[in-house]
Structure formats: structure tokens, C-alpha cells
């Protein structure tokens, strides 16, 4: 079966690991556990009529102590930029990472995810902030499961070149 490597990138604490956990195991854990190095999961999906295995590389969130290890992105077919709606700075971080990745690997398919819609009352990120980049964007809640599958499938569809599936996922 076709295998595609997808990397999860973003500031620490935005919910990269929780998104994968929700997508792969349909589980959410309230405890925050920092990822060290890389966490690898796999999930078989069908996107736009194509069966494929997504190899999900969940990369340790960038912080002041350690920058993102860019070498882990080599061989990736696409990536998911994750920001936390409650922390505006994480969206700027996502923007910065996107620029660094594009500089190193060229224009790879990606989606932007603003996570934590369950805490929307505390959001600092406004829709105008998100729209300014013109990226394919999803608002998700790893806790409640909202938008998570659609987001992964939209990127998968992008990787298989299925435009209709991308549009459908983005609308939902």
C-alpha cells in the first residue's frame, strides 16, 4: 500500500500529539505530556478512492531550549502546522515554521490547524489572523474530536491529488 510520511509541527503544547492520538486511537488524555524526539504512528486511510498508509511523524514542539530538528522532515510528503487558538503567539510560530520548512524543502503540501475549539471562549486567535495567510485551514478540537479526521483526510487527499475530496473536507 502507498505510504505517505506526514509531519506534525508547531510550538510546544498546541496539541500535536493529542490530534494524532484522537485520529489514530480515538482517545483524548487531559494530561499534558511533552513529546521528546519523534513519536511515530501509522494510520490506514482511504482518500479520494486511494488506499494509503499515513506515517505520522509527531515532532517535538519547538521551544526556547530546542529548535525544531528540521532533518526529521526529510522525505515527508506533507505536514500539518498546528497552532493553539488560545495562544496567539503559536500562530506566529506556525507561520515562521512554514517559512523555514519551505526554505529547506521547497513548497510541500500542508494544512494549518487551529486546535482547541473546545476552549473557544478563551481564543486569542481571530479569524482575520487566520485568513490573512490564505492557507487551507481547519479548526479542531482534539478533546472533542471536532474537525480532526476531516483535517487529516484533507491533507491525505491533497497528497493523492484529489481536489474534490480536499474541497469537501475543507467545507465540513
Amino acid at each position, binding site marked *: 500500500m502507498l505510504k505517505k510520511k506526514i509531519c506534525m509541527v508547531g510550538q510546544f503544547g498546541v496539541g500535536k500529539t493529542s490530534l494524532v492520538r484522537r485520529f489514530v486511537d480515538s482517545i483524548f488524555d487531559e494530561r499534558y505530556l511533552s513529546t521528546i524526539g519523534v513519536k511515530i504512528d501509522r494510520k490506514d486511510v482511504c482518500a479520494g478512492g486511494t488506499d494509503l498508509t499515513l506515517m505520522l511523524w509527531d515532532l*517535538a514542539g519547538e521551544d526556547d531550549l530546542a529548535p525544531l530538528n528540521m532533518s526529521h522532515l*526529510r522525505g515527508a510528503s506533507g505536514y500539518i502546522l498546528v497552532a493553539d487558538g488560545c495562544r496567539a503567539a503559536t500562530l506566529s510560530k506556525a507561520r515562521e515554521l512554514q517559512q523555514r520548512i519551505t526554505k529547506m524543502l521547497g513548497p510541500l503540501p500542508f494544512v494549518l490547524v487551529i486546535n482547541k475549539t473546545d476552549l473557544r471562549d478563551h481564543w486569542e486567535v481571530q479569524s482575520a489572523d487566520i485568513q490573512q495567510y490564505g492557507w487551507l485551514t481547519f479548526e479542531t478540537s482534539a478533546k472533542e474530536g471536532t474537525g480532526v479526521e476531516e483535517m487529516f483526510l484533507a491533507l491525505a487527499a491533497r497528497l493523492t491529488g484529489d481536489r474534490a475530496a480536499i474541497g469537501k473536507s475543507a467545507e465540513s
Partner: protein
Amino acid sequence: MSPSAQFELLAALGYAVLERTGPGSFRALGSAPRWLPKGPVTDAFPFLELFLLDAEEYWAYPGGRPRLSSDLWTQAADFGREMHFRAVAVAADRQLLLIERVDSRFDQAQAFVQYAHEAKLAEEKISKLSHELARATEAKSEFLARMSHEIRTPLNSLLGMAELLSETELNDEQREYVRIFRRAGDTLLNIINDILDFSKVEAGQIQMECIGFDVAQVVREAIDIIDVRARAKGLAVSFSIQPELPARWMGDPGRLRQILLNLLGNAVKFTEQGAIRVSVEKLHDELHFAVSDTGAGIAADRISTIFDSFTQADVSTTRKYGGTGLGLAISKRFVELMGGRIWAESAPGSGSTIHFTARLEADEGNAPEAAEDAPRPALDNLSLRILLADDSADNRFLIRGYLRGTACLIDEVENGAAAVERFQSGEYGLILMDAEMPVMDGYSAVRAIRACEIERGLPPTPVLALTAHAFQEARDRSLAAGCTDHLVKPIAKTALLEAIARHAGKPHAEAPIHVEVENWLKPVVPGYLEKRRGDVAALESALERRDFATIHTLGHQMAGSGAGYGFAGITAIGAALEESALASDPARIRRAISDLDRFLRNVVTG
């Protein structure tokens, strides 16, 4: 140890030892650990796909490096568990790939990173909360200012009309009704003021003044105000002051009077018979005030809470005596701002004494006796044309009522633009200006009037802002716009008439300030004063540029030199300039400049 024994040992330590047999091809040496699945390693460990790219390069060109280590990686294991690994490529006689279980090392690394992340997240949360709190406090202040304005505006009409009504011919029954009406209005105003004061204290917006005042006079003024109520209950109020105590002190007489009024008000409220006594003495380096009564007293278990907000000694007290329960809480904060403390001594049935101290310094400067002894200008003799700008017909009616019987003529307009127009075509001795009006507000109107005066070379007309905004910022805003003074609605008739007389009759009201100068200084004094006159202009221009450093320097020079020439007034003004420049407080600086100007205009040396 034989190589095979070494591989057995490594396997026992949790390593899988693989030998590279070709590109991407490996065989296990020794016994493979149970966690190492059969088949290609990259199938079991997708992470190695990436690492082996680097490892192949390393094996081809080790470049003297003994080994190449990978980052840590995590993979799901059975039963929701996770396994943590690290890979090491070694280039020796053989090309080896070691895969190591690093669960405990992973836990340590994670604990460290997690601690750093949680600390950072907590810091972000605190900073966010503190911003939200600041925004909420600002919104609360704004709401209070607005509410205060909205309540004061109709209250101004109510209290003013009641005052005018009481001056008309009334029978005894009607007089009693009006008296109750006025008392209720005054109480309501006091409650609003209490709530405003309290919220300002809470928001840290209260600044204590530091001016010279006569402590006995402040106490007597407070007693005078309370005396009517005390006498109505048959209570005598007495006052004693330590004889050798200096008369004049530096501090905030307004706030001191407020504390005393609060304590005296409570004493009268809670005492049915007997007497009230106020005493002032010096205790160590503090001024010690005590207000004693022979009233109901406070139970021991309540004494510690009476200074808390919204607390009275007994909830039934509120029903019986009324009040917001804020008076003592406000007094406590004021006392603390004066560097002192407040406490109570009492036993039920044997009266109470409330003590407080204030850390004040004696005022070494000259008392402004001459100015205070000058006869107050009476409005009766003042023939004055007044321009009144206020959009509320009720307020205009009230002011007209207040001024009836004086020799003043009033022209009324409904907005700032009309005021500016009228000002240009008429000659006015004084202007009363509301702040918020349609078309053009009072601030813009005053600015336009000041510009017009400068253009025509006219002396400034006294402009009294008359608004329902009670906060200090509103006062600062009025003065910054060019108003001469800021009066707060609701205003009593006497207060308005006094303010008009004070400002309109100013040139006559200013009495000479006599200062004795020692003989040997006489030749240099005129030069010194002339230089200070130059400072007035320099200060005004520095203030316009918001050049607080220059203001501070000039203030410092005056503070240092004034008393040496015999002008304690200049030293006091210099100190005020220094302080207000440090606080970057334009309103206080403006007041100090105007004090200096007045001092220099009126000083007479002998």
C-alpha cells in the same frame, strides 16, 4: 571476552546488535531482544528509514567518528504502552547498528522538558490573566465614572432646586419636608462619593497631596460640619490638641478632614447620649488622632473586622443606622497612604475610641496668613456678566436661580460652538462651561476661547468647568484644556457663588504677601525674584513640551534657594514642582506654576 560473549552482554543490557550485511540489510548478532520484531528493521522501526540515510554515509566515511547516534523516538507498543528507542551506528572492524531501549532515560528527559514547558505555559497564563485583569479594572473605572456622571447630573437639579426652594417663603410643614428632602439628597451624594472613593482606592488611583496646612483648623472644620447633627442629638463635641505641637504640617488636609468626618459621623451616629472627644498629639514621630465617644461600643470579636469593606459591627446596624459600610474601609486606606495605621478600642456599652496615626512632617514654611486673612470678595458687590454654556435646560434654570439676587447678568447658550461665538461678540467677566455638550464640547470651546484671547491680546477670562465628572482625570482634563477651575456637580449654591467670586474678583482678592528679608540679603533679592519671574515662562514652555527634566531642575533650584533668601513659599513651590515633575503630573505642575506666578506678583519684601 570473545566477540560473541560481548554481543550476548549487550543484548542482556537491552541492546539489539545488528551487523550491516549490505545497503539496508542487517543480521542480528547474539540473542535478539524480545522487542525486536523479525523482518526488515525499517518495517518495525520506520524512524530508521531516515537514520539509515545518515548511517550509510557514516559507514562509508566514518571520518574518525567512533559512532553516530540518532534522536530518541517513540513507538506504540501493545496495551496502549509506548516504547522509547535510540539507534547508534558504529564503524569498527564490522559495521554495526545498535538499537537501544531508552525508557528510563526518556522519562528523565521528558520530566525535564515537561517542567520547562509547564512553567512557560503557566507564565503565559499569568501574563494573560494580568492583562485581562487590567482591562477589567479599566472597564470598571470607566463604568463608575459614567455612572457617577449620570447620577450626579439629575442630583444636581434635585439638590439645587431643594436649596432654592428652602429660600422661598414656606410654612413650617413645608420647611420640614424640604429639610428632609435635602438631607436625603445629601446622604445620597455622600454614598455616591464613598463608592467612588473606594473604587479609586481599590484601583490605586488616589494620590495624596503634600501641602502645608493647619492641623487644628482641619479638625475644627470637621467638627463644625458634624456639630449640627451632634447638637440635634444633645451630644457635646470637644477638641484638645497637645499645646506644644507645631501648628502647620505638610500633608493632604482634604483627605485628613474626610477621615475625621467619617469617624466623627460614626461617633454621632452610634452615640445616643454623652459626648464626643477629639484629641491630637505627637506620638514618637507620628501625629496621633483619637475620636472617642460614649456610644454603643463594639463587641470584641467585631473589632478586627470593622475596617473591612462593606462591614458594619452588626448586620442589624445597617437596618438601624444605614450607610454603605465603606467609610472605615476608605479611612483605613487613606491612613495607610499617609504612612499611618488605624485601630479601635472599645467594649460594648462603654463607648469606643478610634485611633489613627499619620506620618507627617511639620511645615517649616511661612503660613499664607496674609492671603487667608484677606477679605473674601462678596458676589453681592460684583457686577459681572457671565456666559453660561450648558445643554441641560434644568441646569441652566438652576444656575439662574442660584444667581438671582446677585448683581450678575447671565447669557445662556446650549453648546460650545455657541459659547465661542458669544464670547467673540461680548465681554464676559466669567464663563461657566459644561463639559459634555452637543455640537462642540466644553473642552474644545475653552481651547478656542483661549486661542481667541491670545490672538487679540486679551487677558484670560476665568472659565469654570462645571461638570458631573468627579474623577481627578476629569479635573486634569479641564485644566489641561485651559479652564481656570473645575467644579463638580451637584454643587451647592454657596460653593458656586464663592467660586465665581473667587475667580472673577481675583485681581482684587490677591493680597500682598509680606516677607521679611534680612538686611544683608536686600541688595540681591530683586535680582533673585526677577530670575524666578523668568522661570515662570521657562516652566510654562517646558510644560508645553512635556520636558519634565527641565521642570525638575528648575524646581530643585527653587527648593534649594528659596528659603535661603527668606522665601519659604518659593521653596515649597519648588519642592512641589520637583515632585510633580518626577510623577510627570501636568495638572500639579500647572498648579505649582500658577502658585509661583501668584507669589511673585504679590510678594512684598520688607
